[in-house]
């Protein structure tokens, strides 16, 4: 390699590093002496998804609990352990790991720093939760059930769709809950299901949506991260009031205001805030899984749902919500449970 290519390589390395290290956000010091850290997965702080929502919750701990907060963005999967270690070594009162991608990193770091406290979002660590870790998961199937009810009551063609990201137990929970909801509200409706096997390829999302709408589907729910952007790109080109998309994780109606029926929101912010608060008040018992569903307000409908959904449909949705909360309906979260639910 000659001089020029070395210069080119160095220059690009510097740029890559500049981006890599740019990811520190300092929330400022406070007097309480209580410190909270958050490590994002590769999505970064402003991912319009759970990292961003989690950061909202962390920011609340600063405003309401006087915590000193700090976030580290992971650029690659290899950054998880070093980032967590940094916060543990700094003696943070709690360090949040956002996303199931931390499944391996959390037990590793938690065992090295038995006196530090950690929280992980979206994973129960396969049931083996160390004594200093709180694992937060959501009953996505319950929120998805309500989306299914909405879709089942909205469809005129009795055909609705579901686009999943990478098929995994987590995304299957969305699918199972959604299909159960469709069935409960409108047994005549069929559900077309497809997985993009990606969380980033928007083109795949778009072509799946295109094919589904062409097949007569008029409402599509996605649980596919960035793939879902393609769904919104496609639905926007279709007739208003006839074709609908349903968003996920946070209110996505801004992506297609005239075509978004609703979004299934996950209150990662509420979860992160409440657990941090419990820790500060000395009430938290780590080493456990905390599961948040409709009852705990951990999942729910976006506020903008009422924009396009008529009041009588919303009322129906609310009835189902109450039935789930008081245990009358047990929402399936796996393929097997779904099949039992459908044959009942």
């Amino acid at each position, binding site marked *: *390699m*000659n*001089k*020029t*290519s070395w210069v*080119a*390589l160095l*220059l*690009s*390395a510097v*740029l*890559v590093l*500049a*981006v890599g290290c*740019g990811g520190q*956000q300092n929330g400022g010091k406070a007097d309480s002496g209580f410190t909270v850290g958050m490590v994002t997965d590769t*999505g*970064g*702080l*402003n*991912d*319009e998804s759970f990292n961003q929502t989690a950061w909202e919750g962390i920011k609340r701990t600063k405003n309401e609990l006087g915590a000193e907060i700090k976030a580290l963005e992971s650029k690659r999967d290899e950054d998880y352990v070093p980032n967590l270690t940094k916060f543990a070594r700094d003696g943070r009162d709690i360090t949040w790991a956002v996303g199931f991608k931390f499944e391996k990193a959390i037990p590793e770091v938690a065992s090295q720093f038995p006196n530090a406290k950690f929280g992980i979002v979206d994973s129960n660590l396969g049931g083996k939760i160390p004594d200093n870790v709180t694992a937060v998961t959501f009953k996505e199937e319950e929120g998805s059930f309500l989306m299914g009810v909405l879709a089942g009551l909205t469809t005129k063609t009795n055909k609705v769709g579901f686009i999943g990201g990478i*098929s995994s137990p987590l995304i299957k929970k969305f699918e199972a809950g959604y299909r159960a909801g469709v069935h409960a509200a409108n047994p005549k409706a069929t559900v*077309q*299901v*497809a*997985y*993009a*096997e*990606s969380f*980033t*390829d*928007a*083109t*795949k999302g*778009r*072509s*799946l949506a*295109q*094919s*589904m709408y*062409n*097949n007569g589907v008029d409402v599509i729910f996605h649980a596919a991260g*960035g793939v879902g*952007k*393609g769904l919104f*790109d496609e639905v926007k*080109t279709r007739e208003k009031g006839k074709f609908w998309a349903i968003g996920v994780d946070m209110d996505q109606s*801004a*992506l297609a205001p005239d075509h978004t029926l609703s979004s299934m929101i996950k209150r990662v912010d509420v979860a992160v805030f409440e657990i941090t608060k419990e820790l500060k008040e000395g009430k938290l018992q780590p080493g456990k899984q905390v599961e948040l569903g409709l009852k705990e307000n951990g999942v729910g409908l976006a506020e903008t749902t009422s924009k396009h959904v008529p009041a009588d449909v919303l009322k129906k949705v609310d009835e189902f919500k109450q039935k789930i909360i008081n245990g009358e309906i047990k929402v399936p979260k796996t393929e097997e449970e779904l099949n039992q639910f459908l044959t009942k």
Partner: protein
Amino acid sequence: MLETLTNILNTTVLYSTPLILAGLGGLFSERSGVVNIALEGLMTIGAFTAAVVTIVTGNAWMGLLAAVVSGMILALPHAIASITFKADQVVSGVALNFLALGLSVYLVKRFYDGAAQTPVVPDKLEEVAIPGLSQIPVIGPSLFHAFPTTYIAVILVLVSSFILYRTPFGMRLRAVGEHPQAAETAGVSVILMRYMAVIISGALAAIGGAALSISIGSEFNQSTVAGQGFIALAALIFGKWRPYGVLGAAVFFGFAVALSLTGQLYGLTQYLPSEVLNMLPYVLTILALAGFVGRAEAPAAIGKPYEKGSR
């Protein structure tokens, strides 16, 4: 049944458009003898520039134009390093890929308040129906109700083929890639031809990137291009460094993706898990590259820096 065909064709068109454009880009550069592994980076910078300029001007055509310029500018360092300074062309290309991704992600963060993606673009090169033709069953809704970038891609295949095989410029370009010494003896400037080829390459690949951010999709983030530049490179080899070959290879790849995606809607997942179905395009590409197309004849002087006066 007809619906199924329409859907498969639709997805094929959707997927092959950026690949055709970037593949053609690679074609110009490599036919002149310069390896262009930087297609990925050139697509990335095109996608980024198109999105940002569309947001600023509110006009997607301005975005496309700016993408072309950005691709030409980013291709320049590759040309300078590999032609003037005779650096290893693969290394220079790899460096460019890192540079493009790092730079565009960094700038998105700077421009949009730390965000990981640009906002949604206000104007798009959305699908347009060609009157009359779009009414034809099956092929109408897929081939004649397509993105402007798709039409541009097909037209550019025709234009590239004409330029390469029917104009003095194209013949000189190919000569430079096959036997630069002979071309120089005949009075062709090898250096100039190669510079032009690499810059054209940047422009075309950038249009391919723009297709992803302001036509098919509507934003730019770090995974907008996500490896499609490398698939385009494979399409170039699979297409034996010929314009129609690139078209065919890109369409083949798009078709494989279409099968894997639409197959799920027609119950194929009963027999094959979706993970396996989604691997199909890549497996087919490897199989095709490994033997079905026969020996791929690369331009003879590819990858070799030109030394004036050497033989």
